[in-house]
Protein backbone atom coordinates (compact mmCIF):
# COMPACT_ATOMS: atom_id res chain seq x y z
CA UNK A 1 0.00 0.00 0.00
CA UNK A 2 1.20 3.47 -0.89
CA UNK A 3 0.65 6.14 1.72
CA UNK A 4 1.27 9.60 0.38
CA UNK A 5 0.94 13.18 1.66
CA UNK A 6 -0.82 15.71 -0.55
CA UNK A 7 -1.70 19.38 -0.25
CA UNK A 8 -4.77 21.18 -1.47
CA UNK A 9 -4.76 21.43 -5.26
CA UNK A 10 -2.34 18.54 -5.68
CA UNK A 11 -3.23 15.33 -7.47
CA UNK A 12 -2.34 11.71 -7.79
CA UNK A 13 -2.57 9.65 -10.93
CA UNK A 14 -3.63 6.02 -10.98
CA UNK A 15 -2.73 4.30 -14.21
CA UNK A 16 -3.17 6.21 -17.44
CA UNK A 17 -6.57 7.71 -16.99
CA UNK A 18 -7.54 8.15 -13.33
CA UNK A 19 -6.74 11.39 -11.54
CA UNK A 20 -7.66 12.26 -7.98
CA UNK A 21 -7.29 15.88 -6.90
CA UNK A 22 -7.52 17.26 -3.37
CA UNK A 23 -10.05 20.07 -3.76
CA UNK A 24 -10.70 21.12 -0.21
CA UNK A 25 -9.42 20.38 3.27
CA UNK A 26 -11.64 21.22 6.15
CA UNK A 27 -11.44 20.13 9.76
CA UNK A 28 -11.13 16.37 9.39
CA UNK A 29 -12.79 16.20 6.03
CA UNK A 30 -11.33 16.15 2.58
CA UNK A 31 -13.08 16.85 -0.69
CA UNK A 32 -11.75 14.93 -3.66
CA UNK A 33 -12.30 15.38 -7.36
CA UNK A 34 -12.05 12.06 -9.16
CA UNK A 35 -11.71 11.94 -12.86
CA UNK A 36 -11.97 8.45 -14.29
CA UNK A 37 -13.20 6.79 -17.48
CA UNK A 38 -16.94 6.11 -17.57
CA UNK A 39 -16.42 2.37 -17.44
CA UNK A 40 -14.63 2.58 -14.09
CA UNK A 41 -16.71 2.10 -10.98
CA UNK A 42 -16.17 4.79 -8.34
CA UNK A 43 -18.07 4.16 -5.14
CA UNK A 44 -18.00 5.16 -1.51
CA UNK A 45 -16.96 2.07 0.42
CA UNK A 46 -19.70 2.34 3.05
CA UNK A 47 -22.32 2.16 0.29
CA UNK A 48 -20.77 -1.05 -1.00
CA UNK A 49 -20.81 -2.41 2.57
CA UNK A 50 -24.48 -1.54 2.96
CA UNK A 51 -25.37 -3.34 -0.26
CA UNK A 52 -23.30 -6.30 0.86
CA UNK A 53 -25.26 -6.42 4.10
CA UNK A 54 -28.62 -6.08 2.35
CA UNK A 55 -27.71 -8.90 -0.06
CA UNK A 56 -26.97 -11.13 2.91
CA UNK A 57 -30.29 -10.11 4.45
CA UNK A 58 -32.05 -11.14 1.25
CA UNK A 59 -31.02 -14.75 1.84
CA UNK A 60 -34.14 -16.00 3.55
CA UNK A 61 -34.49 -19.34 5.23
CA UNK A 62 -38.24 -19.14 5.54
CA UNK A 63 -40.32 -17.65 2.76
CA UNK A 64 -43.77 -18.69 3.95
CA UNK A 65 -44.84 -15.08 4.41
CA UNK A 66 -44.57 -14.51 0.66
CA UNK A 67 -47.12 -17.20 -0.09
CA UNK A 68 -49.81 -15.46 1.88
CA UNK A 69 -49.48 -11.98 0.45
CA UNK A 70 -52.59 -10.69 -1.18
CA UNK A 71 -52.27 -7.43 -3.02
Amino acid at each position, binding site marked *: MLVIGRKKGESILIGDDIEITIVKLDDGQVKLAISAPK*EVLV*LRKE*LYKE*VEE*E*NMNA*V*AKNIDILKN*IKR
Partner: protein
Amino acid sequence: MKLLSKYHGEVNYEEKDIIKFPSGIPGFEKLREFIVFSIEGSEEFSILHSIEDTHVGLIITNPFIFEKDYEINLPDYITANLKIEKPEQADVYTTVTLSSSLDKITSNLRAPIIINKELKLGEQYIMEAQKYDIRYPLFREGK
Protein backbone atom coordinates in the same frame (compact mmCIF):
# COMPACT_ATOMS: atom_id res chain seq x y z
CA MET B 1 -29.42 -30.73 -13.64
CA LYS B 2 -30.49 -30.58 -10.07
CA LEU B 3 -29.88 -28.09 -7.31
CA LEU B 4 -30.58 -29.24 -3.79
CA SER B 5 -31.20 -25.93 -2.09
CA LYS B 6 -30.72 -25.88 1.66
CA TYR B 7 -33.89 -23.86 2.24
CA HIS B 8 -35.94 -24.18 -0.93
CA GLY B 9 -35.86 -27.86 -1.76
CA GLU B 10 -35.00 -29.48 -5.03
CA VAL B 11 -34.84 -27.34 -8.14
CA ASN B 12 -34.34 -28.63 -11.68
CA TYR B 13 -32.55 -26.44 -14.18
CA GLU B 14 -30.74 -26.65 -17.48
CA GLU B 15 -27.33 -25.47 -18.57
CA LYS B 16 -28.93 -22.62 -20.52
CA ASP B 17 -30.60 -21.28 -17.34
CA ILE B 18 -27.28 -20.49 -15.67
CA ILE B 19 -26.57 -16.77 -15.28
CA LYS B 20 -22.93 -15.83 -14.90
CA PHE B 21 -21.93 -13.00 -12.59
CA PRO B 22 -18.28 -12.42 -13.60
CA SER B 23 -17.62 -10.14 -10.63
CA GLY B 24 -19.89 -11.94 -8.18
CA ILE B 25 -22.45 -10.13 -6.03
CA PRO B 26 -21.42 -7.92 -3.08
CA GLY B 27 -21.30 -10.19 -0.04
CA PHE B 28 -20.96 -13.24 -2.28
CA GLU B 29 -18.02 -12.26 -4.44
CA LYS B 30 -16.77 -15.81 -4.85
CA LEU B 31 -20.04 -17.12 -6.26
CA ARG B 32 -20.29 -16.70 -10.02
CA GLU B 33 -23.15 -18.88 -11.23
CA PHE B 34 -26.80 -18.42 -10.36
CA ILE B 35 -30.25 -19.46 -11.53
CA VAL B 36 -33.57 -17.69 -11.09
CA PHE B 37 -36.65 -19.67 -10.15
CA SER B 38 -40.12 -18.68 -9.08
CA ILE B 39 -41.63 -19.18 -5.66
CA GLU B 40 -44.64 -21.42 -5.59
CA GLY B 41 -47.72 -19.45 -4.64
CA SER B 42 -46.12 -16.07 -5.22
CA GLU B 43 -46.30 -14.08 -8.42
CA GLU B 44 -44.14 -11.13 -7.47
CA PHE B 45 -41.15 -12.83 -5.92
CA SER B 46 -38.46 -15.15 -7.20
CA ILE B 47 -35.21 -16.58 -5.93
CA LEU B 48 -31.77 -15.87 -7.33
CA HIS B 49 -29.91 -18.97 -6.23
CA SER B 50 -26.25 -19.85 -6.35
CA ILE B 51 -25.55 -23.23 -7.92
CA GLU B 52 -22.17 -23.27 -6.19
CA ASP B 53 -23.45 -22.79 -2.63
CA THR B 54 -26.68 -24.55 -1.69
CA HIS B 55 -27.25 -22.10 1.21
CA VAL B 56 -27.34 -18.94 -0.88
CA GLY B 57 -30.69 -18.00 -2.38
CA LEU B 58 -31.59 -14.31 -2.49
CA ILE B 59 -35.21 -13.26 -2.62
CA ILE B 60 -35.73 -10.92 -5.55
CA THR B 61 -38.60 -9.05 -7.12
CA ASN B 62 -39.44 -6.96 -10.14
CA PRO B 63 -39.13 -3.40 -8.75
CA PHE B 64 -41.46 -1.96 -11.40
CA ILE B 65 -44.39 -3.78 -9.77
CA PHE B 66 -43.94 -1.81 -6.55
CA GLU B 67 -42.53 1.46 -7.83
CA LYS B 68 -44.23 2.34 -11.07
CA ASP B 69 -41.86 5.21 -11.84
CA TYR B 70 -38.71 3.29 -11.06
CA GLU B 71 -35.98 4.48 -13.36
CA ILE B 72 -32.46 3.30 -14.03
CA ASN B 73 -29.83 4.79 -16.23
CA LEU B 74 -27.32 2.07 -16.83
CA PRO B 75 -23.76 3.43 -16.75
CA ASP B 76 -21.33 2.50 -19.49
CA TYR B 77 -19.37 0.08 -17.35
CA ILE B 78 -22.49 -2.02 -16.74
CA THR B 79 -23.66 -2.08 -20.36
CA ALA B 80 -20.07 -2.89 -21.40
CA ASN B 81 -19.63 -5.67 -18.82
CA LEU B 82 -22.98 -7.20 -19.64
CA LYS B 83 -22.77 -6.50 -23.39
CA ILE B 84 -26.17 -4.85 -23.34
CA GLU B 85 -26.94 -3.03 -26.58
CA LYS B 86 -30.66 -2.45 -26.28
CA PRO B 87 -32.88 -2.05 -23.21
CA GLU B 88 -34.98 -5.08 -24.16
CA GLN B 89 -32.00 -7.32 -23.44
CA ALA B 90 -31.96 -6.37 -19.78
CA ASP B 91 -33.92 -7.89 -16.93
CA VAL B 92 -34.01 -5.88 -13.73
CA TYR B 93 -34.47 -7.35 -10.26
CA THR B 94 -34.05 -5.98 -6.78
CA THR B 95 -33.25 -7.96 -3.65
CA VAL B 96 -35.89 -8.33 -0.95
CA THR B 97 -35.38 -8.49 2.80
CA LEU B 98 -38.19 -10.37 4.49
CA SER B 99 -39.70 -9.81 7.89
CA SER B 100 -42.50 -11.45 9.79
CA SER B 101 -44.42 -8.21 9.64
CA LEU B 102 -45.48 -7.13 6.18
CA ASP B 103 -44.70 -3.45 6.57
CA LYS B 104 -41.08 -4.26 7.36
CA ILE B 105 -40.47 -6.14 4.11
CA THR B 106 -38.09 -4.00 2.07
CA SER B 107 -36.35 -4.04 -1.27
CA ASN B 108 -33.02 -2.52 -2.24
CA LEU B 109 -33.97 -0.13 -5.02
CA ARG B 110 -30.56 1.50 -4.77
CA ALA B 111 -28.73 -1.51 -6.16
CA PRO B 112 -30.68 -3.36 -8.85
CA ILE B 113 -29.41 -6.63 -10.27
CA ILE B 114 -29.14 -6.31 -14.03
CA ILE B 115 -29.18 -9.40 -16.20
CA ASN B 116 -28.57 -9.66 -19.91
CA LYS B 117 -31.20 -12.30 -20.51
CA GLU B 118 -29.90 -13.23 -23.96
CA LEU B 119 -26.30 -13.77 -22.93
CA LYS B 120 -27.11 -14.79 -19.35
CA LEU B 121 -24.72 -12.30 -17.79
CA GLY B 122 -25.45 -10.47 -14.55
CA GLU B 123 -24.11 -7.73 -12.31
CA GLN B 124 -25.45 -5.68 -9.43
CA TYR B 125 -25.46 -1.98 -10.21
CA ILE B 126 -24.97 0.22 -7.15
CA MET B 127 -26.26 3.74 -7.77
CA GLU B 128 -24.06 6.42 -6.30
CA ALA B 129 -26.95 8.91 -6.45
CA GLN B 130 -29.28 8.83 -3.45
CA LYS B 131 -32.45 8.72 -5.50
CA TYR B 132 -33.63 5.36 -4.20
CA ASP B 133 -33.70 3.65 -0.82
CA ILE B 134 -31.61 0.65 0.11
CA ARG B 135 -34.49 -0.40 2.36
CA TYR B 136 -37.62 0.58 0.49
CA PRO B 137 -40.79 -0.71 2.18
CA LEU B 138 -42.82 -2.70 -0.35
CA PHE B 139 -46.07 -2.84 1.57
CA ARG B 140 -46.37 0.55 3.16
CA GLU B 141 -49.73 1.46 4.50
CA GLY B 142 -51.79 3.54 2.16
CA LYS B 143 -49.94 2.37 -0.90
